[in-house]
């Protein structure tokens, strides 16, 4: 029996399975203004989930994550991805109340690793704080910058489906996503710098 997966995971899997090199290039190009251009590959997926209404922010997020993902993988890696499509670890779902769980999958954790790898670089923290405050208009630009930085540091994984889920909820009341990222960032930093409680 196949495990049930979330829509966000399905999207990332879909990208892995169906992207060709040309799609990658197109998605990267579209990053400058996510959602404006029509990319058949992404539209193919969106058509499956969007019914009559068109959710603008949802569309932007799917395009944005597709572009970010495309900019983080190279064409040569595509074959490898296709062969092991389940590479991304399972998301523990349902336990929304406990934000502490699974904080390692958030972008906040990834950025904290970058921050530590760069000797607690002040500019990374500043960028992170700016990212937390980004509104919908600024977010694509700041995300692009951040993913570029993350890519430049070896071995920091980005959990794309988690990222997509978070971006979709970026504007929620009480800013749960920003809270989660900030918590993940500072907790990771504290654990590393204070000798680690774990």
């Amino acid at each position, binding site marked *: 029996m196949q495990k049930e997966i979330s829509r966000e995971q399905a999207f990332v899997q879909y990208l892995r399975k169906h992207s060709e090199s040309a799609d990658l290039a197109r998605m990267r190009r579209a990053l400058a203004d996510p959602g404006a251009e029509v990319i058949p590959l992404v539209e193919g997926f969106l058509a499956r989930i969007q019914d009559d209404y068109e959710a603008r922010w949802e569309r932007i997020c799917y395009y944005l994550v597709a572009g970010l993902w495309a900019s983080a993988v190279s064409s040569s890696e595509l074959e490898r991805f296709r062969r092991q499509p389940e590479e991304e670890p399972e998301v523990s779902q349902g336990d929304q109340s406990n934000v502490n769980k699974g904080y390692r999958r958030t972008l906040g954790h990834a950025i904290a690793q970058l921050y530590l790898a760069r000797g607690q670089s002040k500019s990374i*923290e500043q960028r992170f*704080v*700016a*990212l*937390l*405050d980004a509104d919908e208009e600024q977010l694509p630009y700041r995300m692009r910058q951040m993913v570029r930085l993350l890519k430049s540091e070896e071995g920091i994984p980005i959990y794309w489906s988690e990222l997509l889920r978070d971006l979709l909820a970026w504007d929620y009341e*009480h*800013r749960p996503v*920003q*809270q989660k990222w*900030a*918590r993940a*960032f*500072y*907790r990771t930093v*504290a654990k590393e710098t*204070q000798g680690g*409680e*774990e």
Partner: protein
Amino acid sequence: MPTFNLITQPWIPARQQGALRLVSLEQALLEARRFERIEDPSPLVTVALHRLLLAILHRALEGPGDAYEAAEWFKNGFDQGKIRAYLVRYHDRFDLFHPERPFYQVPDFTLERSSRSWTVLAPELNSDNNKVLFDHTITSRPRPLQPDEAARLLVANQTFALSAGKSVLCHTATAPVATAALALMLGENLHQTLCLNLVAYQKHELERDFATWEKEPLRVADLADCERAKASAKGIVHRYTWLSRAVRFEPEEESGQTVVRWIAYASGVRYEESQVRRDPMVAVRPDPKDPTKERPLGFSEGRALWRDFAALLPKPGSAQGLEVANHACNVYDKLHCHFEKRGIPVMVAGQANDQAKIELWRGETYRLPEAILGKADLHVFVKKCLDQAEEMGKALNGAARALATELLTMGDRQPHKDDVSRLVQSFPHQAAYWSALEGQFADWILRLGPDFLEQQARLEQDWQQTLKREALRAWELTALVAGNDARALRAIYKSEGILLSRFYRKEAVGAKGN
């Protein structure tokens, strides 16, 4: 001549079958079983009246020698003959307006020397040097005071008078227990209450000790000599009946009734600390500044008394505990009495002051858990758990302080520490944490039953979980105040580690212990 004899006139507010009535000293002592309790709106008056009754009983009954005798009295009542004989012997000394020996006053003190409105006796009312919000008593034209009320205020004032600088006689010093929280163990009726608080009073103390009214009253000349107007307590009754102030009521006649408007009021006998036995109603706790020393447990603003609850519990094998609590346990032990899941209620009353200014007064009732009758050292256990609460409170405070510092930091500039303190003060973490714990503690302490030893580990674990839960809740409230823009989020999650690391450390220690 006006007269108001406290032995025969009604002046003590007592609760009888639900109704409040005034009774005389004689009734209160001889018919104590008929009254549920003494109850004045002011907890200070209530507890001071008990001390007065206890003092009379100690002297009249010349005891009890030990808890066995107190238990005997508890069961069979007091020797009424002895009480009557004592009251007959000192009958005149209990007249509020006696020309030569007015009760608890200085006979030759006159209004010419010092004329004050009677409101100076009542800390809750506006008097000439003590302004109270919302009270509109006019000191230049005080309302007439009835003798029964005057007597109550006099007794409370002698017990709780606070230092107030110079007077026409000498320096007005603080009464022996004015700043302490006085504990009174409560029984099911006044008689039981009295027996539970009649601590051992042995022959050698009985001979040395005296009640203020047993001696010839002090005169102005005695009290004006500042060198001579000091003493140390000769025994517990001397302490219970300390003449803290020179008072003389000036009775007036008004529509056929005796009332008081003006009183002569000045310093009394200055209390000198000595090595004699400690006040049985006063608990001690370690001095926060110097743990080798002890301080009387008292009320203070911003720190609820239950946080020092352990001080109220008997300390097995030590003479340092709260004597009335030890005594009450012993009495119940001798009676082979069980509480049937209710514990021993204890009333704690007192005031908090800032020098001569009274910040608050309070009477609180707690229940000492059933387990105090067992052999287990509850004191150590409860103290440990309360210390854990304090530590958690400190971690919470540390996190709040770090949060405030982060919020106020602009670039590389460190904020001023006063600004940080002000911001920390405005956070709700302290109030949220301690007030939530107060209710939780009251429930928790009652779970300390006869099966305490078996339950101990479980009780401790539950308490720690409560601490964690309430600390987190208080922190969440504080984080809400900080806001949710990126700067605030940065500050919140950077400082939160201080609190969380305490949880982890605890768990790590626990894991090793298992």
